[in-house]
């Protein structure tokens, strides 16, 4: 599909049911799942709309952060005690005592994991993103929007189908500053 021939249509539905029906119908019209995006004001699961599962890197990024945090803890607990110009003796403890080491490792592992989980959302969602985007404010009023990418040739057919399936509005999607 040549780039210039592609149009985006934004259809806004009042509810979940007609949106799920519309997705199914679009599929029967030959629109692939990758050419559709659902935008909603509440977390609608893929199963509710009959959509393929979304991939997310957040758990992996969290795990990576946990490992980095753990390594930071290893540095503070195992390496730092030997970096002093003279050893610090705490009571009768060894230079690297067991129980305090557990505390340091735990805190830094959790810190690494939670920080990276947070950053994971930013990375996976491309946040922050202040460029113009295809969106209508009605979505945060509880409407469900389907953003369909199709060719100019199919535009009319798809617009008619979406209107027939109960869309409140169907129009070419225009990127705008949010």
């Amino acid at each position, binding site marked *: 599909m040549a780039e210039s021939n592609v149009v985006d249509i934004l259809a806004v539905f009042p509810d979940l049911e007609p949106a799920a029906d519309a997705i199914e119908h679009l599929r029967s019209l030959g629109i692939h799942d990758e050419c559709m*995006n*659902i*935008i*909603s*004001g*509440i*977390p*609608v*699961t*893929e199963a*509710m709309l009959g*959509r393929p599962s*979304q991939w*997310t890197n*957040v*758990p992996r990024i*969290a795990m990576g952060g946990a490992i980095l945090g753990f390594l930071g803890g290893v540095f*503070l*607990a195992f390496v*730092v*005690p030997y*970096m*002093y*110009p003279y050893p*610090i003796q*705490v009571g009768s*403890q060894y230079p690297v*005592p067991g129980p*305090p*080491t557990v*505390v*340091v490792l*735990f*805190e*830094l592992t*959790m*810190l690494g*994991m*939670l*920080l990276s*989980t*947070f950053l*994971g*959302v*930013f990375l*996976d*969602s*491309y*946040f*922050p*993103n*202040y*460029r113009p*985007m295809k*969106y209508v*404010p009605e979505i*945060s*009023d*509880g409407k469900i929007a389907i953003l369909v990418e199709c060719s100019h040739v199919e535009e009319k057919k798809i617009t008619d189908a979406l209107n027939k399936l109960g869309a409140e509005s169907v129009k070419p999607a225009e990127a705008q500053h*949010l």
Partner: protein
Amino acid sequence: MADHKNHAEHAEAHLREKHLMLDPLPRGKMNEMVMESMTEKPTWKFWLVFAVLSVITAYGLFYSWGVMIAEGLGVAGVNRPAYWGIFLVNTVFWIGISHAGTFISAILRVFKAEFRRPFTRAAELMTTFGLVQAGFSIFMHMGRVWLSYWLMPYPNQRMLWPNFHSPLSWDLLAITTYLLSSTMYLFLPLIPDVAMARDRSTGWRKTFYKVLALGFRGTEGEWTHLRNAMNIFAFAIIPVMFSVHTIVSWDFAAAMRPGWNSTIFGPYFVVGALHSGMGAVIIVLAVIRSTMKHMKYFIRAEHFDAIGKLMLIISMTWAYFFFNDYMVQWYGGDKWTKQLFHFHEAGPLGWMWFAMLIFNVAIPWAILWNPKWRSTPWLVAVVGIFINIGMWFERYIIVPISLTINRMPFTWRLYEPGIEIPLGIGTLTFFILLYMAASKLIPLIPVWEVQEGQMAHELKKFGRETVVTVSELE
């Protein structure tokens, strides 16, 4: 037959009136209500309270702190043998307050307690703002606050590293971890709500919400990443919350002092934190319900009833831990511990020990067992105030009063606070100021979570009875 029908309809109407989750409004209407609660022009009463609190904060927190920095820690009442005074009482107190947010938002989320939905954010805000006050209190306690960066692990020219085997360094790690993670946990579920606010604002508010919303639209991908992250946070932040107050308790329990060296201090402190935290949440909810527009729709008697039950259970658990700690030390018969206990109960501040038990146990038990009283917002808020005073007394007894009695009687001297008093009041007024400002800037109700909950709830008939059912949407 008609009677039965009328009765069923009446029961259904009653359930809908009682439960927010069964009384849905269109999302647009709820958005409008939350926006109005934030953007309505503040009344003269709001500005008066704001001005008075600002003056107290300016004097109590900033001016007094300036005086202490200029004059030195000598203007505070800490001296031998009570080197830890109100600064550390307040540190423990504010960290305790901060536990409520995580408890409500994470533990109740993990257990899918549906009543949590409208007030998770109000509780999370308390966590973040409470930790800010705890941080202030620690820095005050340091005295030479400009050297606080020495706590941070960085390679410096003198090769002086903090000793990470010391409980005070664990404090730094635990409180930093908790402050960062609770702030992130506050922010993640806030993104869809600030995006909603962005769509409905103009002027400086539009710019403010636009920046905070980060470009969120609500695509499938964005929701998936957000949901995954919130699940990870909900599970992971619970052990972090437990670790923070446990580590704070080790600041005391790891010392070989009478009254402090207790193996049960960890869970005792955690339960105490939840006790004061829940008490504070109920006060905040009662205040925002009675002062902010439309909040009576979102925060209802059912929420006070549910939190009241939790407060009662936590009060019982606190009493159990208190008695366990007291009993074992008392039975041990150590000479100095006996002296300390006598000082707690019959010393010059013995009234505080009895007040602690009355405020933390007797009053909550006397009131919260009754469902009708438990559902009365102002009454539960009064119980919350008593609990918070009682828990502050508990920390005062543990810190400076217990430090008075040691194994060297010639050093015994009662702690008399000095500049700590305005500084402590300053942290309280600053906390309230932050909350008042946040109530005008941040949607206090997570609208999308409320709508999600309302979608999941419905009434179902079993025979002649109408009952509430919840579907698992996630």
